[in-house]
C-alpha cells in the first residue's frame, strides 16, 4: 500500500496536501512509538545501531536470528535496486531493521490497524 492508498484508506483523499502530509507523518510517528514502546534500553540501543548501519551489530543479529535472510524475497527486492539507488542504502540494514521490528512485535499489523482506525476516527483534527 503506497502513501496515496493509505490516505484513501483513512478517508482523507479530499484533504489538502498539507493535511495529508500531517496525517502520514503522524501515522509514522505513532506507529514508531507503538512498535518501540516497552522495549528495554538495550533493545532500543540495538535498533539504533542497526538503523545507523553498524555492520557488526547487523551481521550479528542476522546470523543469530535470520541466517537465511539473503534467500528472502524482501532482501532480494531491497538489494535489487541497489545500483540504481543514488543513496546506495544497504539492503541488509533496511532488511534487518524491518525483521527486527517484526520479531519484537508479533502483533504489529494489529497495532498499525488500531492506529489507522484512530486516525480515521479523528480526521477533523488534521484539517
Amino acid at each position: 500500500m503506497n502513501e496515496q492508498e493509505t490516505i484513501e484508506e483513512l478517508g482523507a483523499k479530499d484533504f489538502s496536501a498539507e493535511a495529508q502530509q500531517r496525517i502520514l507523518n503522524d501515522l509514522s510517528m505513532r506507529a514508531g512509538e507503538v512498535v518501540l514502546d516497552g522495549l528495554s534500553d538495550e533493545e532500543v540501543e540495538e535498533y539504533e545501531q542497526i538503523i545507523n548501519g553498524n555492520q557488526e551489530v547487523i551481521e550479528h543479529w542476522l546470523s543469530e536470528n535470520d541466517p537465511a535472510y539473503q534467500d528472502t524475497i524482501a532482501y532480494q527486492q531491497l538489494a535489487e535496486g541497489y545500483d540504481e539507488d543514488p543513496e546506495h542504502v544497504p539492503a541488509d540494514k533496511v532488511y534487518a531493521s524491518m525483521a527486527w521490528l517484526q520479531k519484537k512485535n508479533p502483533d504489529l499489523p494489529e497495532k498499525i490497524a488500531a492506529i489507522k482506525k484512530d486516525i480515521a476516527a479523528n480526521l477533523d483534527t488534521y484539517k
Partner: protein
Amino acid sequence: MSETLLPSGVVSTEQDEKAQLDADYAKLRASLDAEYVAAKAKHEKDVAFGKYDTFTGPLNRGEYSHDSYHAQRPSGGIVRDGDYYKNTETGKFATAEEYAEQNGPVDEQPLDYYDKVNGITEQPVSETPQYDAMEVGELRAEAARAETLGDRAASEEVRKTLAERYELMSIPELAREAALAEIADNAAGVEDVKTAMRHTVMEYVTNPNNGVDMSDETYDEMVANFDGLIDLAVKQQRRLHGEAVATPVVTEVTAEAEADEEPAQDAPETLEAVSQETEAAGEPKYAEGDEVFMKIGDDGKGRSEVFIQGEPSLEEGTWKYTVVNAAGDVFPLSEEELVLSDETLEAGNEAPEAESEPDETPKKHRYNGEPVDLIGESFMGENGHLYQLVQYADGSQSNVLQSDIMDPEAEKKESRFAKAKKWWKDNSLKQKLSYTYAWMGAQWTIKGHRVGEATINHGITDEMSPEETEARRKKNRRTLIAGRAAIGIAGLAGIGLLVTEISHTLSHAGDAMMTGGHGGHTETGMSNGGGHHETATPDTSAVEAAPAPLEAQSGEGGIALLQRLGVEHPTDAWNAHAQEWLAKYPNDLRGGADGSVWLSHSGLLPDGLRDEINALK
C-alpha cells in the same frame, strides 16, 4: 607667588609652570585627538565591512546555532589561528599537514559534520544530479524522488529537463510517458507531456509539407485522438503495473445488431454477407483493453503480453485485432495468433469464462501442467524418493514423483509471492528513503509544515538544553524510521507475507530437498511423459542420490560459478545462457541495462538452474 629652582638653575615662577602645563595639555590633547580620529576611522571601517553584524534569524526549533556549535566543538587538538596553526593543548605551533590530518579530507562538506554529530553515519552526501546526462527513465525516477522529498527546486529542474526530452519524442512515446505520469498521480507530469504533444501536433498541422488541412478543427481532432491514445496507454500501463482496471465487457452485440445500427449505410446483400461471415467466425473472443498473449517462437509455444487496441475487424472469416505490446509497438494479429493466458487456454479452445461467476470448485493438483487427483497416500520407493498415485482427467492413472506435483496451495503461494514482489517493487525505495540523510533532512523543511512542526523536531521546546534537544531529535529519527518500517511490515502482512519469508524459488528447492529432490526421477527409468496413462511402478533398482544443491559462494559471479563447477569456456557459456536464465530465475539473477547478467545473491540457487548448468559440462 612661589618660586621653584629648576635643575637648569632657572628660577621658575608659578606663571611659568602654568604655561608649561598648558603646553603639555595641548600636546597630549592633540595626540589623543589624533588617536581618537584614527580609532574612529577604524571603527567606521569595521562597521562598514560588517565586523559587528549579528544575525538572529528564525531558526528551526532545536536547530544548531553558532553557540551550540562552539559548545560542542572539541577544545583540544590543532586549531587554525589566522595564517598559523596551533596545538591548543601544548600551545606550540603546528603544521598545516598536521591540521589537515586531524580534520580529514579537505573537501569535507558541512553535511558530513552533521552526520557525525547527529549519528547518521554512512550516508554519503549525494552530488548534484546531472539531469542533462540522464535517460528519460532516470529522470522520471528523479522527478518522483524530488516529489517524495518535497524538493521543489529539484522537481522544477527535472521537469524542465524532461520537457526538453518530450519535445523530441514521437506521439506514441509521448502517450506512454503521459500514461506513466498518470499512474504515478503526477498531474504536472501529464500536463507537461500534453503540452509537448500539442506542440508536436501544432508543428504537424502547420507544416505545409505534410499536406494536411491546417484548420483548427484538424488540430482539435488530432489532439482529441491523442487524448484517446493516452487513455489507452494508461489502461495498458495500469495492467502492466498490476493495477486493477475495469476490463471492458466482451461485447454482446452481434454482427446483425451492429448492422442494425446503421441500416441505411449497407445494402441488404452486404448485411447478409456480413451476417453469414460473422456467424461462421463466431463472436470475437477479445475486446478493447483485454490483456492477452501472442504466440511466439517457431513452435508457437512462447508467450508475449500484448493488449487489444480498438475494435476487432472481421476479415475473411477471421477476427483481426490491433494490439500494442509493452514497448508501445502497435501491430495487427489474427485471433489464432493470440491466447488468453500464458498457460493453457488458447484461442480456439473453449471460450473463457471471465464474465461468469467465480469458480467455486476446489482447484486440483497439477502434474506436468495437467490437472490430476491424488489417489491414496504417497509412498516411498526403494530409491528413497516419495511417489504418489495420480488420476488424470481421462481416468488413467500413474505413479509420479510427489515433488513434481504442484498442489493448489503452492499455486496460491506462488500468487502471494508475485504480489509480494510487486509490493516491494512499489515500496522498496520508499522504505530505503527513511534511512537517507536527504529524506531525513527534508523533514526539517518539508512542505506542509510550519516552523517547529517538522517531524524531526517533534516535542522539542525552547526550554530544552542542547543535549536534551539532541536526544529528542535522535529519538524522533529512530521513531520515524521504525514507524515507516512498521507500516511497511503491516502492508506486507496485508498480502499474507512476512518480511522474513523465504522466496518461492528457494522455498521450492528446499521442499525438493526435503522430499528427496527432483531431477533424479528421469534416471529411475520411470515414465513421466507419454507413458503416464499406464500405471507405472517406480523402478527402484537404480538408487541414485539427488544432485547436491547448488550454492553460490559469497562474492562469486556467474562466470566464476560456472568455472568452479567445471563448465568449459565459462565466459562463453555464461554469455550464451545468462539472458535465458534471467528470464527463468528472476529472483536469483539480475540484469543490467547494458545486457549484463549477474547472480543477485549468494547461497542456495534453484535446482532448475543447477540442472541446466550441469547439462553444460
